[in-house]
């Protein structure tokens, strides 16, 4: 049952990433702690979006929506930060 296997692997991968992010927070990496946390969160998001939400296989429209949201989020953060 390949679909079941795929979902299970995704689940195990998510738990592993969680262990990694919690574990890394006990190491003193300075500013890299936050960066690492965000990278791991992004990786988890990719796993959930692609394997649980079928983002890659549901046609072009869902990806369009995600791309638009990502682009506008970038505008919101980017232009607010230039004022600082």
């Amino acid at each position, binding site marked *: 049952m390949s679909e079941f296997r795929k979902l299970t692997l995704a689940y195990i991968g998510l738990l592993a990433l969680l262990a990694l992010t919690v574990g890394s927070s006990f190491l003193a990496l300075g500013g890299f702690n936050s960066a690492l946390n965000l990278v791991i969160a992004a990786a988890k998001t990719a796993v959930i979006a692609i394997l649980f939400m079928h983002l890659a296989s549901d046609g072009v*429209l869902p990806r369009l929506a995600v791309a*638009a*949201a990502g682009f506008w989020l970038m*505008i*919101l953060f980017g*232009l*607010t930060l*230039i*004022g*600082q």
Partner: protein
Amino acid sequence: MSSDLASASYLAEGAGPRSWLLTTDHKRVAWLYFVSLTAFFFLGGTFAVLMRIELATPAGDLVSDDVYNRLFSLHGIIMVWFFLVPSIPATLGNFLLPLMIGARDLAFPRLNLASWYVFMFGSLFALASVVLGGVDTGWTFYTPLSTLYANGFVSTAAFGVFIVGFSTIMTGINFIVTVHTLRAPGLTWFRLPIFVWTLYATSLVMVLATPVLAASLILIVLERVFGIGIFNPDLGGDPLLFQHLFWFYSHPAVYIMILPGMGVVSEVLPCFSRRPLFGYKAVALASMAIAVFGFLVWGHHMFVSGQSAYAGVVFSFLSFCVAIPSAIKVFNWSLTLRKGEISFETPMLYALFFLALFTFGGLAGLFLAALAIDVHVHDTYFVVAHFHYIMVGGMVTAYMAGLHFWWPKLTGRMYSEVWGRIAAAVTFIGFNLTFFPQYVLGFLGMPRRYHTYPPEFAFWHILSSAGAVVLAIGYLMPLLYLAWSLFRGAQAPANPWRATGLEWQTSSPPPAHNFDRMPTVTRPAYDYPMKGLTEKRSDPVEDLV
């Protein structure tokens, strides 16, 4: 009403309140919105007239300063969120979008009806804040005024605006999905009427900007009700951050308001000059460019709010850039008129007034985008005049153009052309008389939001107040003759203006499922002058399909 037409019309599907309040027909939902929005328009207009009467004399003799604060706040809140933002999309857009793309309904008809109920639920809160005593923060809810000092019903009003945001997002999602999935066979993206393009661009802005407003309003209510100090400097918060979030929504919201108006004008101008729209692709893409660029300029509301000089320069530059797609449109509209067989029916009069007033107001926007000039005229009547030229002179005028253009389609009745033209002229004169003096006042240094002023400003204020009365008459007249036409107007043919577009291929008013035969599109939009349509004034179906 002849019986064979009545049996086919969506209006004949039922007559009781249930048939309206539980309908999922996009055409009837459009009417639900239309009735509610008209009520809000006249409520907001009443507040404006009261302000102008107060300002007819330099002294504060009609209302106190506190009442005046509440008047302009409620005028802004109601006009922006309960009229302008939903105005064209929820009424004309709701009615016409499926017709224009050859669909039987919007993608989610029940969601569409739900959006109206959510809108009404939100408006209850806004009306409650009016009845309970009003809000005195201005429509912008600036912190820390709104969180620490305001003694009006800020939470009630903010919550109402928050709820209405849901209705906006519902409409936006519905429109986006509809345009993507329900276009008729042959109706490619570059054959879409510009009105559909602008509704699509508007929906994009609605879906992506409204949640940011929701976030800022949630935080305000949390701060007022739960005591979380997010914008309170004493508790570590940052009041400027509210302005960032607020204008991230509210500047694009200006384009939510004006883009559908641009769409209406792009339909009306080609029809009454019997010419294809000049530079169709440029106009279509300019609509999308406005939707994107509109998000990059919010900092120009904060030039004097203490953001860094560097940010000011960037936002000033970007604000000049956003004028480019608007200018592209103005040039294309003007060139559409060139060598056209222009006739001056009521919708065309309104569309031409739009062209004049939008250009005039837009150019004043460039003044405001310039950092040094903005420091001088910021928070004066110059700004008030600028955005009223865009919002009232532009948007409301376009709304009137669209209303008159599609009224035969909406109702199956013709209105009085004579009264239509008179009302358009009265509106134009009244509008300029009201708002042009405000440019002068602002330039002379009259700040906005004061209920008294030094006597040397009296001349311009009196002119403006007189204009407001003329303008009010100009807006009351259509209410009367359009209502009259519902009962006494002549039967409208399917295509009274000899216009292109799928909505004119079905009967007036359309049947409940829009088309008896689902249309197929083989030609570009604005295929004027339509050969073979010059003699016959009705039933163009054979000529087009």
